[in-house]
């Protein structure tokens, strides 16, 4: 023992003072991390709570109506537009994901394709909106419509659908595919009847996430879907197609656009905007919680305890 002591530099023996200081610093930072985490939880609860309570506190029964003054029609448009957009993005996105997972070869082209998908997912939604405006309105001399808006939202959710499907396919055990191919099924049959059905829970989670984001989208709709709405629920009025709620070619403002337009509108629109924001918040919260719940269930099923 004495031999060691002679040899070592004195500074290297553990020093109580230094350790004490290091531990104090450690404790301070631990407190900081706890505070930041707490701050964000509080911020989220305060934010969500404020938006929802404020929205309903200032609401009058008229505001809930499905007519010119209420936001019912905007609510309907929001749901309908997202529904239309999913009709477009889900099949294309799932097929794209199938291509990436099962058909794309490991080469430069696929790498480029991956970068393209990344680019698409990082494009500002207003840029996608402008593209839609250019193609569906300016180039075709059309009026703003739910269809144009839903295509823009679909473009925005395509990368999510593609990567969700690809990841889901890749995480399947290889035995699924080999088993089916081994029975003489073609790759198409294998994908359609074995692989995709096995991916459905994950794809649904992706769809819910995409829908949640779609509800809140505004920048992409600003110049494509029209911000006002005028529909009639009485079928006799549908002689004029622009009054038919289910006509995708009519103008259709959404809740998010309603919230946005109160910013530019004159005073008095505040209560309506508050209510729109509150309903949007509830929609988005419930969809992301649902997605989170489903994801948890899928994980549990796969035996992943993380």
């Amino acid at each position, binding site marked *: 023992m004495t031999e060691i002591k002679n*040899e070592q530099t004195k500074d290297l023996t*553990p*020093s*109580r003072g230094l350790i004490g200081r290091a531990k104090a610093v450690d404790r301070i930072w631990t407190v900081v991390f706890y505070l930041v985490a707490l701050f964000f939880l509080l911020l989220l609860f305060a934010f969500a709570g404020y938006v929802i309570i404020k929205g309903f506190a200032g609401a009058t029964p008229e505001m809930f109506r499905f007519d010119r003054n209420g936001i019912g029609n905007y609510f309907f448009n929001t749901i309908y537009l997202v529904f239309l957009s999913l009709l477009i993005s889900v099949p294309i996105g799932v097929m794209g994901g199938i291509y990436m997972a099962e058909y794309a070869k490991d080469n430069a082209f696929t790498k480029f394709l991956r970068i393209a998908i990344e680019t698409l997912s990082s494009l500002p939604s207003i840029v996608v909106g402008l593209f839609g405006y250019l193609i569906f309105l300016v180039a075709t001399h059309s009026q703003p419509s739910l269809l144009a808006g839903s295509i823009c939202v679909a473009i925005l959710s395509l990368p999510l659908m593609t990567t969700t499907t690809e990841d889901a396919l890749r995480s399947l055990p290889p035995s699924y595919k080999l088993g089916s191919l081994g029975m003489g099924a073609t790759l198409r049959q294998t994908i359609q009847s074995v692989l995709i059905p096995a991916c459905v829970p994950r794809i649904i989670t992706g769809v819910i996430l995409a829908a949640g984001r779609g509800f809140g989208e505004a920048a992409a709709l600003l110049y494509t879907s029209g911000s006002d709405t005028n529909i009639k629920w009485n079928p006799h009025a549908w002689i004029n197609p622009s009054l038919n709620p289910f006509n995708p070619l009519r103008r259709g403002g959404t809740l998010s656009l309603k919230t946005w337009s109160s910013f530019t509108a004159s005073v008095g629109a505040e209560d309506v905007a508050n209510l729109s924001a509150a309903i949007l918040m509830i929609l988005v919260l419930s969809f992301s919680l649902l997605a989170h719940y489903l994801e948890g269930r899928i994980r549990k099923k796969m035996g992943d305890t993380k």
Partner: protein
Amino acid sequence: MSENSKFTARNLNLYYGDFHALKNINFEIEANKITALIGPSGCGKSTFLKTLNRMNDFVEGCKIEGDVLLDGKDIYKTDMSAIELRQRVGMVFQQPNPFPKSIYENVAYGPRIRGIKKKSELDEIVETSLREVGIWDEFKDRLHKSALGLSGGQQQRLCIARTVAVHPEVVLMDEPTSALDPISTMKIEDLAVEMKKKYTIVIVTHNMQQANRISDTTAFFLLGELIETGATKDLFLNPKNKKTEEYITGRFG
């Protein structure tokens, strides 16, 4: 407690939740000797090793009863902190685990957290540590290259250099060669024998030949119990306990 003992465990019991992982261990580890802990997988030898520098603190639900003394001072019950303990009792792990930093930074890390900042001092420590482990000539021209680029055997020796750079009193080795090829294993065994002049070494090993080759004392663990301890030669030639005999003759394990 004998005079030369570094570590003393008295009535040591350890639980992982409901699982009784160490059962009433009484054991002394002598200074400047190599003590080998052997036994089949799950026998508690690694768990015991980890109680010696409180790496068990990171295992959730781990509960310890009894005393573990380092130089006569209880490492769990006195004011000695886990940090201070680990600065005195270094550890080499089963998988070589260099930091994703340069070779130099790996060795300099320990001295740095002990407050050494001067470059000249750090340079010196890095050189002596690498020399001590016998890899200075091999590494001196690429000190600032990433340690992740080294082979497994080189990484493990670097990890040993990193451990000795802070002059610990004890070096714990948790199956340090199980992930290495025979030649690297031999080098590390030679190194361990060389190192016992300066350090107390406790080594967990799966490999009975290894225990036989390098250790002075061997302890045989089975199902959380310490079955037998003794001078390595005696234990391997004349095991007193039947279970020890069965294990070292390869009848189970």
